[in-house]
């Protein structure tokens, strides 16, 4: 289990992280979202020891993280990087060994991963001879070769074609099933919503939302209503107490509500205006939630 508590880091005048705390449990997949420069990469690099925090603490399985613990992490940096001229298998074996594996274990794990990721036929080629998509797969194998108990992946889905996205999703689900903790950053919010159990939203170096995705959506739910009325008029809703916005779309009228709005009063007003075909409190998508919690 990975825990960040109150981690801060500034670069000159720029505050990259400001008291950031979140955790990733074994068997959990957590998405890290935020705009560019929100601090996602800095947080990951601090976990990997590639940057030092100015304050706060990172713990892995209960103890402050150290070099030996970090070698158990599988890491995929934002800017992909392997040796272009090194052969695929040699490369994976090398990184397996750097993670503390024996040569023999490293070899067999490398063989399994190239097989599983569909690059076995290129295992003896130099990395630079592979297509970019296949290079991405090798990069993933390099993060996984030592059977890490924690995966830290910076934008692992960027640049993948739909097939690649499916392969990576399957692999990550498999790792979580195996009991690994997985945290990755992405701008593809639908993907995170689809894959992750939990999400941490960073904005300007601060955590602005954090928790299980279902829980968050429920917590932020009830602030919007979809009402379908016979006749599709929207005039009845204008100026109702507690209603801050009214938009019509193909499926009816969506009302934005103030936090103290009385939904029963809204229902009464709707019924007074005509026959109500449906009246649904809306659960926001992750994308909507994201737009709501980050400052413009």
């Amino acid at each position: 289990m990975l825990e960040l508590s109150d981690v801060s880091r500034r670069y000159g005048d720029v505050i990259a992280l400001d008291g950031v705390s979140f955790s990733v449990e074994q068997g959990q997949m957590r998405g890290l979202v935020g705009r560019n420069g929100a601090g996602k990469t800095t947080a990951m690099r601090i976990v990997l020891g590639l940057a030092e925090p100015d304050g706060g603490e990172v713990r892995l399985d209960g103890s402050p993280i150290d070099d030996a613990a970090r070698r158990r992490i599988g890491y995929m940096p934002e800017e992909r990087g392997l040796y272009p001229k090194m052969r695929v298998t040699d490369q994976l074996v090398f990184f397996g060994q750097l993670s503390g594996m024996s040569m023999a274990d490293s070899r067999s794990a490398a063989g399994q991963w190239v097989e599983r990721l569909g690059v076995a036929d290129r295992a003896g080629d130099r990395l630079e001879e592979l297509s970019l998509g296949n290079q991405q797969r090798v990069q993933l194998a390099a993060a996984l070769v030592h059977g890490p108990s924690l995966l830290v992946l910076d934008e692992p889905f960027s640049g993948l074609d739909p097939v690649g996205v499916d392969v990576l999703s399957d692999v990550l689900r498999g790792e979580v099933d195996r009991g690994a903790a997985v945290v990755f950053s992405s701008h593809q919010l639908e993907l995170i919503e689809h894959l992750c159990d939990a999400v941490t939203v960073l904005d300007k170096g601060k955590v602005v939302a954090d928790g299980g995705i279902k829980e968050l959506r429920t917590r932020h739910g009830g602030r919007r209503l979809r009402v379908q009325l016979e006749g599709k008029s929207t005039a009845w809703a204008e100026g109702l107490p507690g209603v801050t916005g009214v938009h019509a779309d193909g499926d009816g009228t969506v009302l934005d509500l103030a936090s103290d709005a009385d939904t029963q009063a809204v229902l009464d007003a709707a019924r007074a205006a005509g026959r109500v075909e449906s009246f649904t409190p809306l659960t926001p998508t992750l994308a909507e939630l994201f737009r709501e919690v980050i400052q413009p």
Partner: protein
Amino acid sequence: MTETSAEPGLTPRRAVMLIIRRELSERTRQKSFLISTGVTLLIVLAIAVLPGLLGDDGPKTYDIGVVGAGGAPLAEALPRVDLGSDVRVTTRTLADRAEAERLVEDGTLDAAVDGDAVVVDEELGGELEALVQLANRDVRAQQALVAAGVSGDQARAITDPPPLRTVALDPPDRERDDRRTLVTFGVFFVFGQIFGYGFAVASSVVEEKASRVVELLLAKIRPRELLTGKIIGVGALGFGQLVLFMAVGLAAATASGSIDLPPGTAGAAVLVLGWFLLGFILYSALFAMAGAVASRVEELQNTSSPITFLIMAGYIGTVAAAGDPGGAVARVTSFFPFWAPLVMPIRMAAGEATAGEVVIVTALVLVTAVVVVRLAARIYAGGALRTRGRIKLREAMSDSART
């Protein structure tokens, strides 16, 4: 997949070993490495073998004819003339002047003596002149002495006295000179290896930054371990190549008769290799810094140019030392730690360095190496992860999170 078989016990030593192994196996598999080693070997062979083939092609032979039976004493005297150099003379008796002129003209003979005349093709000069005139003078003098009543043996003793004994006050030590020549050759290779493999360290540092693989590496091991492994791995290759060049060069030079290896050749080789190691540690650490503050291969040219100047200046000292190992330039430059690895072995081989100087200079170089390597580790730690833009040295040092 594989369950966590990752042992937390990756010791620093094993981390360094893994880096060394990768450097060695990847480099020796490169075609360019094999080709350049082959080409250099050919050059080494050429340098080693050519003097044997061209320079010393055995004793010089003069073919001299003597006309008529009256020339017999001269024909006998000619091979006995001692010019102090390795000269061999063959003589033949000719029937007449016409035959003499014909054989000299077609090059069969170098000269032919007919009574009081010597027939040559163009001119009589150098050794040939000395040879013929001395032999003629001896014969005439002996004939005159015999005519005056001196016995033949006595006459010969008078005209052919034993040569003077040489008493040299400061005789040249040929073996030492030979060793010095060998060491000078060795040092030129050391220069090439330090420069070539030092630069290889720098470009390897930059390549890891440019390909961003350094981020993955430093998530596993410390910058210090990566740098150490890289320097040892690249250095071992340069060292191995140097040993190969020296072994092949010495073997070929001996086999082709270019030189006779003086006693102490093995010691001289160890001297050269030892100074290579010291020099390589110094320069590779400097080159690693140059790599750490560049983020692209193209910038390396700029960041490494001060080092290039430094080693080129050392090369000038080397040339001076090779010419005059006891001179002031050699002496002064051998005390500068960055030049000592090139100049000192020559001074030592020439017997111009006192034991005290050797100790002081070695200590100076070692201390400098420790300082430079530490500095390099800090700058490398700070610069290795900065993959964008040129990095200021001060930033690199203050930014080194962990070494």
